[in-house]
């Protein structure tokens, strides 16, 4: 039934030659002027892990699909496209199918681990499909093999899990099931497309360990990721892609330590972990300073003879329960003016609920939030509303926080009207709470016009007439930031503001937040799962797990000398670009 796979292990290794050779691969989609992949060349040795790094739209996933014959609707062209002894160019459909997932063939873990399995079928069935398609094993043999495979990929309780559907499994377990289905028959090459994205860092570490284990058993891996840190853990060589071209290809160490291409250099510099607080992440080619009109406000905390720390936000013993789950459990903290408090934790740690409690979108079961020493969470909404502009928010999914009907200009206009209200009605209060206006008198750092607002977040004026859904992810987040500062807040709650952005865009956004903080004297409550980001961005940090604060203190202290076991485990799991 199954045709003999070309290049099966029988072939004599007369000379060590790469398992995969790609020469001048070009992939072009119909009705697109520029090719998605433009003449890239690389190779993978047997048993080697090669990393393919690039930002979204750089063509890495398309490259992977071309290697699988799954670049549907695209025109694939190459001088050389070889896997084992098989020339992949012009392969018939049935020969492609015989190659995919088969023994000695190519296994593939698609992007989007969370939705890569059919939600309506038990995961064991999906894994058994690989066996059904390429072997003549009976149903009973397949079932037994599925359990073995699930055990091999580290799935706890494999018998139970095999019968469950994806929605019953966590993200990490789903990814393990997908890996089991990809390696069921022992492919010689495993292509893993963003295998750790959207997973918590401890889970990420487990998946990377599993991939490493597979590699040590002789499987070559093409590891595709936007995350340099992830790639540097596993890959012996790295290929860096930008806009469809391969800009750099070489040993991992060399590429990370001495990047040749300017793009690689920018990419490496943009990783926040390696840069201490205050260091800029984005290159100076981008506008660094705010428009000259804005006087630079130096936060008082930075002064050696700092005035006493002014508490803008205080949480006292906050608790919130949802049904059985204690989402937030007696959390207390204070946030001073001009400071950034990082809140770090994995999914389900309660950090987002904490943000909603602070924003008074959720009522605490116990404890309270005080704003400028006054009642906040305990006030009725009617009284709170006039003070709401004091505390703004930006979210991970900026796009969904915009009314789809409105243009960026209209969205900002709405927020500016709120800000103007603050400016007039609360002039006295503003004067007392904004040192800049206190010091500078009429010289107001707050932009009260649309143009100034767009300038402040480095967006072109033309953005105003566009709807956010047509902007890039980074631009959307800039609009969100502009909206937040338009209302003249003292505090901004940042809920994973850079988590879904490419690393270079992430760097620009982090820098922008930094600039605004120093100009406007903002305080940030910075919520993230990313240790690198939190380390770069915050003065103090709270480590949360299961709704409780496990550890808190100045960021550097917590990171260099963690006291809680969990913090240590988190730090150990966090992929880091070691240099």
């Amino acid at each position, binding site marked *: 039934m199954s045709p003999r796979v070309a290049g099966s292990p029988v072939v004599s290794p007369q000379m060590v030659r790469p398992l995969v050779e790609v020469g001048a691969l070009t992939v072009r989609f119909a009705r697109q002027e520029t090719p998605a992949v433009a003449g890239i060349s690389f190779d993978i040795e047997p048993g080697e892990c090669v990393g393919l790094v690039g930002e979204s739209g750089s063509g890495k996933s398309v490259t992977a699909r071309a290697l699988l014959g799954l670049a549907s609707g695209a025109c694939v062209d190459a001088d050389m496209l070889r896997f084992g002894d098989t020339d992949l160019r012009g392969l018939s459909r049935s020969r492609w199918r015989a190659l995919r997932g088969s023994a000695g063939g190519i296994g593939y873990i698609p992007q989007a681990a969370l939705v890569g399995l059919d939600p309506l079928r038990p995961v064991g069935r999906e894994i058994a499909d690989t066996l059904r398609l390429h072997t003549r094993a009976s149903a009973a043999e397949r079932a037994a093999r599925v359990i073995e495979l699930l055990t091999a990929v580290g799935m706890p309780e494999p018998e139970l899990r095999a019968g469950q559907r994806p929605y019953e499994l966590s993200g990490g377990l789903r990814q393990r099931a997908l890996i089991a289905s990809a390696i069921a028959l022992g492919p010689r090459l495993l292509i893993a497309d963003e295998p750790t994205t959207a997973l918590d860092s401890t889970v990420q570490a487990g998946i990377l360990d599993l991939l490493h284990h597979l590699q040590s058993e002789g499987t070559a891996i093409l590891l595709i990721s936007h995350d340099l840190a992830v790639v540097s853990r596993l890959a012996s060589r790295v290929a860096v892609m930008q806009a469809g071209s391969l800009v750099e290809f070489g040993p991992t160490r060399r590429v990370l330590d001495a990047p040749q291409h300017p793009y690689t250099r920018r990419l490496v510099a943009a990783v926040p972990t390696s840069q201490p607080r205050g260091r800029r992440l984005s290159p100076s080619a981008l506008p660094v300073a705010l428009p000259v009109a804005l006087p630079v406000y130096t936060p008082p905390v930075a002064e050696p003879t700092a005035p006493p720390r002014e508490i803008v936000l205080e949480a006292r013993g906050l608790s919130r329960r949802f049904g059985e789950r204690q989402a937030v459990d007696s959390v207390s903290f204070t946030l001073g003016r001009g400071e950034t408090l990082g809140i770090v934790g994995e999914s389900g740690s309660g950090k987002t609920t904490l943000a909603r409690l602070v924003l008074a*979108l959720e009522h605490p079961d116990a404890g309270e939030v005080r704003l400028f020493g006054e009642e906040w969470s305990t006030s009725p909404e009617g009284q709170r509303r006039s003070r709401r502009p004091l505390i703004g928010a930006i979210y991970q999914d900026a796009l969904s926080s915009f009314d789809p009907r409105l243009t960026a200009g209209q969205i900002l206009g709405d927020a500016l009207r709120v800000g103007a209200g603050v400016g007039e009605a609360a002039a006295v209060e503003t004067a007392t709470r904004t040192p800049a206006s206190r010091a500078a008198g009429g010289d107001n750092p707050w932009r009260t016009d649309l143009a100034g607002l767009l300038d402040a977040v480095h967006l072109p004026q033309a953005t105003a007439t566009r709807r956010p859904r047509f902007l890039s992810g980074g631009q959307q987040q800039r609009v969100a930031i502009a909206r937040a500062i338009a209302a003249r807040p003292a505090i901004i709650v940042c809920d994973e503001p850079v988590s879904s952005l490419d690393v270079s865009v992430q760097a620009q956004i982090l820098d922008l937040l930094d600039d605004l903080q120093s100009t406007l004297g903002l305080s940030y409550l910075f919520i993230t799962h990313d240790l690198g980001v939190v380390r770069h961005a915050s003065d103090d940090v709270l480590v949360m797990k299961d709704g409780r604060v496990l550890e808190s203190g100045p960021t550097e202290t917590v990171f260099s000398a963690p006291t809680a076991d969990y913090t240590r485990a988190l730090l150990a799991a966090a992929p880091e670009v070691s240099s």
Partner: protein
Amino acid sequence: MIISPSLTEPPAAQRGRQRSSQRRHRRGHRLARGVSVAEVLAGAVILLLVVAAVAPGLIAPGDPLGINPLQSFQPPSANHLFGTDESGRDIFTRVIHGARASVTIGLTATAIGIGLGLVFGLLAGLGPRWLDFSTTRLLEVLFAFPGLLLALLFIVIYGPGVVTSTIAVGLSTAPGYARLIRSQVRQVRAAPYIEAATVLGHGPASRLVRHLLPNVAGALFVIATLGIGQSIVWAASLSYLGLGAVPPAPEWGAMLSAGRTYISSFWWMTFFPGLFIVLSAAATTLLGRALQQRKRSS
């Protein structure tokens, strides 16, 4: 509890709701290609219908009721494009003049359905929990009169006729609209951008006027367009059954009903009015779907 959609919750509208809730934008070939052939045809038909409804004399200058016994049962020809009926009335003229009645009935029925649906849907979607609960139970009861059942019950009570059959179709479509509007309101209410407006300090009234109502209205417009075609079909069905407009009147369903006796010999008497029903229903559906896609991708 999941209840299935009613008479005229058109599946296409449902789909729109599901897909927009997934926030999936399948941008691409439609935008790139611009307007499809089917949409151009649909546009042409709708234009024809509008002209026929507003000024039928421009297209068919004759008298739709003018009888000419000598010319009865003429097959389609250059003189009588669609032939003539048993009294020698020109069917083309009658079909064109019938557009006004049919389109008016379709629009009115949809307006009644959406109007009622809006009342119940907004009550349930915006009101407190108990109001939502009781409105939803009421809708469940109304859903148990599926299809034309509610319309037939209404006609039993108020007797047949154009007005009652129009109201009847509107009534029987109302529960479906109500549920769609309710879910739309709930969905928009839970949208992150409403929360973002709260965080900025916008009050409930401003959120309602600035965000909630306009976003619900946008979806409603599409749903209404998709519903008009089905309203025309059902109203014509009632006329055909003798429960709506009465034969001498140039209304498509009634013309079909009158032609029924002569099906076997004079096919054109039933063919052309029916064709126009199909054309208008299909054209409004295509228009609705085009709007839906534009909305999704603009």
